[in-house]
């Protein structure tokens, strides 16, 4: 069993966490000007990085979303942080 850190609850079982999305995706706007290609890339496109990755996860037990920095080869969790507030960029 791997232990994942939640910035709000501390170290918890990996089974309590769920992967949501790769970090750094921004919903393209305004909607009427968004092309089908840009929209489908937002919905489905992925970098699937090998090695260091920044990902949005949700801790299911507390319901908070968080940013994990992980190594996708070794599965090591390098950092866990709260999501930036509205208007601040997630990178």
């Amino acid at each position: 069993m791997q232990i994942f850190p939640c910035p709000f609850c501390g170290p918890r079982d990996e089974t309590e966490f769920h992967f949501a999305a790769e970090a750094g995706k921004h919903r393209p706007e305004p909607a009427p000007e968004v092309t089908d290609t840009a929209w489908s890339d937002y919905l489905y496109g992925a970098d699937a990085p090998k090695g260091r990755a920044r990902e949005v996860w949700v801790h299911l037990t507390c319901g908070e979303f968080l940013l994990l920095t992980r190594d996708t080869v070794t599965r090591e969790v390098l950092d866990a942080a709260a999501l930036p507030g509205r208007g601040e960029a997630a990178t």
Partner: protein
Amino acid sequence: MTRYSALALAREGLRGHRGWRPAWRKPDPKPAYDAVIIGGGGHGLATAYYLAKNHGVRRVAVLEKGWIGGGNTGRNTTVIRSNYFYPESVALYDLALRLYEGLSKELNYNVMLSQRGMLIAAHTPMQMEICARIANAMMLNGVDGSLMGPQEARARLPLLNDAPDARYQCLGGVWQGRAGIARHDAVAWGYARAASALGVDIVEGTTVTGISTTGARITGVETDRGPIACDRLGIAAAGATPGLVAPLGIRLPIHDYALQAFVSEPVKPMLDTVLLYLGTGTYVSQSDKGELVFGGGLDRVPTHGQRGNLPVQETIVSGLLEMFPAFGQLKLLRQWAGVVDVVPDSSPILGPAGPEGLFLNCGWGTGGFKAIPAGGWLLAHMLATGAHHEVSRPFDLTRFAEGRLIDEAAGSGIAH
């Protein structure tokens, strides 16, 4: 190529088996080919074979970074079936199944196809209704599928858990009699041997490090053994595909996850079909050697490491014991994982991408072993003619921007 036959076996038996030759040549890569295929898994090797066989394109190389079949082709649980929901999917997977049915003869290589049937088992009246819907869809799509009732399911699976307190009672489910299993290594080796005999170079131990273009056209690949020129390039590299095309500015709808498999110690024959339980998500078959081969859902952690996590192991093994309590006496022999290329609609990506001359065959996720003959057939068609085959067209990458997803995760209730 010497033909394999009962006579050859008898002759070699008398000579102490000293006359067998390597099944495929081990050439050094040439500076240029008419077509290059990245990835020596089942799909890449089948592509090379059908390019040579169906289209007469023989100056072909398959570039494999490790050894052929060392990716998911040699790591999977070998279930073959065409019990999908949408017409496009049935057309694709049944093309594969029909080709599998003639494959040992076609390749002169025993791929040990065993059409022992597969049951997707339901546990509630609602699940039985979904199974009826799938069986009806299969019949409408012209493949063998039927709804199996509880008596017949129990008769076929006498060791099933039918205790009154069993968590998941088996009410029957969808049955496909032509489904079954095959020997995964033999599929890779058989295609490699037959392709090599037609002049294809199978180049193992060679990693593609970059794709060269003029911007508009493919001109070749960079490898750790130097550049190779070609104007037609097929990529059949499963989970490595996104990384290979990213420098061309192509972003694919693929996430990479680990999928695990397990093998028990061998025991006498006791299970002669393939069984998937909707309730546990665990599926199992018994190999010709007597081992139970089983697996289940994905590890839900994106990864490129070929290693599984413990919680999913626990879910899969406990699911098996719920289905067959008697299996609790068995020891596990091996456990491993492969990195699978999962697409949001659980359907593959087949078609052109980016510069002219580039074609993809990827996104098979957890279910591409059963599709190998079709994936190869279709990628060969695209590389040879530059255009889609009618079976591959619906699986084009444009389906995401056009909102034409072929959502088999929802459609046929596949395990992943």
